[in-house]
């Protein structure tokens, strides 16, 4: 008896910790809702939040894998700029077709990642040094290929990726224009969430595994569905579902699955948790490091395309300090500084915390300088609280 209640308490505890940052995210949003007189809940602003943060979210997903191995990638901002510039030059100067350009640039990102992975995994140069060096290299190369100039404007087929929408079906509801697909998508995903949760619970019960008390998943689902539909309704009131939202969601799903459910994901956690033990358990640790950085190169290229598309041009300064935003997002989202622990959803939430802070402060007219101070302090506070909690628990 006492055993089951202890077990349940532990469930509650672990879940609480997991949702701590989500609650913080919510609070930050509400604070700015008040400070900005509701401006940050305007349909257009929700739309902007999604579009502005898409590249940081994409980068945070890749960065989380680096953080899991107890390393970081400092070069992502420069690689974003380089890939964006390359894409713009191919389309504007050489009139290469857009799909081909995207394919070539993504492959280029993979090659950049492999180049870094080669130094890290094969030559055993510390990732901090390799990526610091490449931060300089690719920023410099960006300047060189752009001749220090902005390259643009990009054609509409290109900008679609960063600033476009999924198919739109507008209709009038009580005198307001509403995009139907966004509403339908919100409802559809809500139903999928409920079904998935039910299936997983049934499965656990079937195998006689401990399950959390029923109110927990209900509250969890209620919150998720409320937030989800809040966003989709707001988007419906504006222009519908941004294309980047789809890209982000697909990436989040794929990478969550990889980290949680695949052997490869496990291996990344093992390498970060204890490199020696991982190696002696038959894991090819060099290979893991190589692919983690190759993957980061790929996602950097993708973020580069999205950023250039949103700005409709490539600039030499693009992506400046993106690496720091992505790293901060991972740590705010609960990744351990010593490696081996952290989640994709955490990193995404971390990225959203940064995004909502940026957006809220801009709306109430705080200067970029003050915004940096606030973001820095939030990072410091989040990691301090996290470390303190861990120490208290051990």
């Amino acid at each position, binding site marked *: 008896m006492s055993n089951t209640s202890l077990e349940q308490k532990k469930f509650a505890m672990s879940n609480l910790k997991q949702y701590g940052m989500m609650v913080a995210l919510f609070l930050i949003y509400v604070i700015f809702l008040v400070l900005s007189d509701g401006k940050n809940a305007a349909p257009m602003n929700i739309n902007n939040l999604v579009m502005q943060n898409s590249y940081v979210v994409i980068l945070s997903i890749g960065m989380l894998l680096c953080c899991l191995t107890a390393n970081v990638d400092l070069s992502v901002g420069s690689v974003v700029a380089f890939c964006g510039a390359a894409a713009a030059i191919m389309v504007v100067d050489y009139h290469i077709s857009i799909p081909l350009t995207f394919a070539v640039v993504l492959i280029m990102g993979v090659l950049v990642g492999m180049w870094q992975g080669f130094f890290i995994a094969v030559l055993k140069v510390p990732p901090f040094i390799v990526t610091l060096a490449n931060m300089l290299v690719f920023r410099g190369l960006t300047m060189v290929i752009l001749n220090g100039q902005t390259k643009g404007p990009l054609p509409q087929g290109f900008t679609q990726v960063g600033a476009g929408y999924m198919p739109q079906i507008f209709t009038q509801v009580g005198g307001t224009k509403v995009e139907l697909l966004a509403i339908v998508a919100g409802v559809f995903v809500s139903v999928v969430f409920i079904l998935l949760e039910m299936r997983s619970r049934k499965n656990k019960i079937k195998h006689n595994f401990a399950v959390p008390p029923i109110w927990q998943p209900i509250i969890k689902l209620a919150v998720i569905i409320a937030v989800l539909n809040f966003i989709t309704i707001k988007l419906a009131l504006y222009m519908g579902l941004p294309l980047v939202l789809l890209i982000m969601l697909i990436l989040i799903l794929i990478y969550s699955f990889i980290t949680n459910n*695949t052997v490869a994901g496990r291996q990344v956690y093992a390498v970060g948790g*204890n490199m*020696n033990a991982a190696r*002696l358990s038959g894991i090819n640790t060099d290979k893991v490091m190589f692919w983690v950085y190759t993957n980061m190169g790929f996602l950097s290229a993708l973020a580069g395309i999205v950023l250039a598309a949103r700005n409709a041009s490539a600039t030499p300064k693009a992506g400046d300090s993106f690496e720091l935003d992505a790293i901060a997002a991972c740590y705010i989202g609960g990744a351990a500084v010593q490696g081996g622990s952290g989640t994709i959803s955490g990193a995404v939430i971390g990225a959203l915390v940064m995004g909502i802070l940026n957006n809220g402060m801009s709306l109430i007219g705080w200067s970029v300088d003050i915004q940096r101070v606030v973001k820095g302090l939030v990072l410091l506070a989040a990691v301090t609280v996290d470390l303190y909690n861990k120490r208290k628990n051990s």
Partner: protein
Amino acid sequence: MAEFILEMRHITKDFSGVKALDDVNLTIKKGEIHALCGENGAGKSTLMNVLSGVYPYGTYTGDIVYHGEVCNFNNIRSSEKKGIVIIHQELALIPYLSIAENVFLGNEITPIKGIIDWDETERRARDVLSKIGMGNEDLSQMVNTLGVGKQQLIEIAKALAKEVELLILDEPTAALNDEESNILLELMLKLKEQGITCIMISHKLNEVSRVADSITVIRDGHTIETIEKTDKEIEEDRIIKGMVGRELTNRYPERNSKIGDIVFGVKDWNVYNPSNLKRKVINEVSLNVRSGEVVGLAGLMGAGRTELAMSLFGKAYGENISGEMKKNGKPLSLKSIKDAIDHKIAYVSEDRKRYGLVLPNDLKWNMSLSSLGSRFSKRNVIDENEEIHAAEDYRKIMNIKANSIEQIVGSLSGGNQQKVVLAKWMLSEPDVLILDEPTRGIDVGAKYEIYTVINSLADAGKAVIVISSEMPELLGICDRIYVINEGEIAGELKKEEFSQERIMKLIMNHIGREK
């Protein structure tokens, strides 16, 4: 009667409701060597941490009376000021500082505040080192170039430099070989002559009964008894009885060996040191192991046993490896550790924390780690249900004391951690298991359980190779023993030839051979 240097009265210490120490009393006479014995988790280290101020005054109840006065230590520094120095199991030396710098670490000689007088440091370091028979060492040598044995001595020199009166040694010989242990024990006796009182925590009962004047046995946070050494040696069995609360009539479980055909073997195996390719670490070693057989590798520390084992395990150690490996009569060439695992070979490393476990993760996560690709996944997707079932099964089979399979392994005791590592490798379903120091640093009860597991593995027809620095252990559980020295086979003993003397003789003859 001799006066007491230290009395610890009614010490009680709890960790969030769990009593680690419950009304413990300990009295230490001036100038004696006093041993603390008890199973892992009995509370020995906690008691010493209370004494040395690691757990500051106020976090425990009871009194520490030192030299007749009640002391309230707030940190290690305050206890060191009184002459109480603790040397922990994990050595606290800085690898890239010199011997002299380490000896005076945290205790620097600074005639002008903040500025170190190096000449005086060197002179006094020389003094201190000559007291422990290391007067001829080069003081500017970096500590990482010394062996573990000498490093342990440097720790003692450090304590002497602090003018220690009461020296506490936590498992001082755990990482040392017999020869090094011997030197350390002799030194303890010498320090005793100089009037230094010593408390030693040790699992090695033969050492305890050799040097200790009295022994206090602790079990489950209680003091059980204090045994004085009178004229007779203190009997090991009596200590064990006190520690486990039962008489262990046999420290090694019985087994009827059913030995079959040769499963695994190497011929003319050579291995070179990866950081110095000219150095041959393993030289022309040939050995084999049969199904159902437990084969021991005996030898001094540094004899090359771990290197040999790891080189067999998919070249986890070594360069330019040559020789012939056979499994089930077929030649085998392993390219990687994964290759070795795929060919049903397992190696359980000697250092479970550094090489065995991912400490921040839970039981089931650790148990499945070496068979993720085979048993616990389909098309690279992990089957969590299978994982949970297997972990639950092995928690029962191995009798692992944990709240659930979701407990973090870092919070388990040493014996239970070792069981998790063993479970991990049993789950990879090996034919050949190499166990490197499988019972290092774990208590008598857990050792017995590990031996039982080893026996059942052999009974199931597996071929088991055990490396151990505790000779009685090898004699107790093996069917055959290879004696290794300086990377070569110094001899082979059949069960009926087993004796510690024989093993030592083989080593000594090998050391004295003509090169």
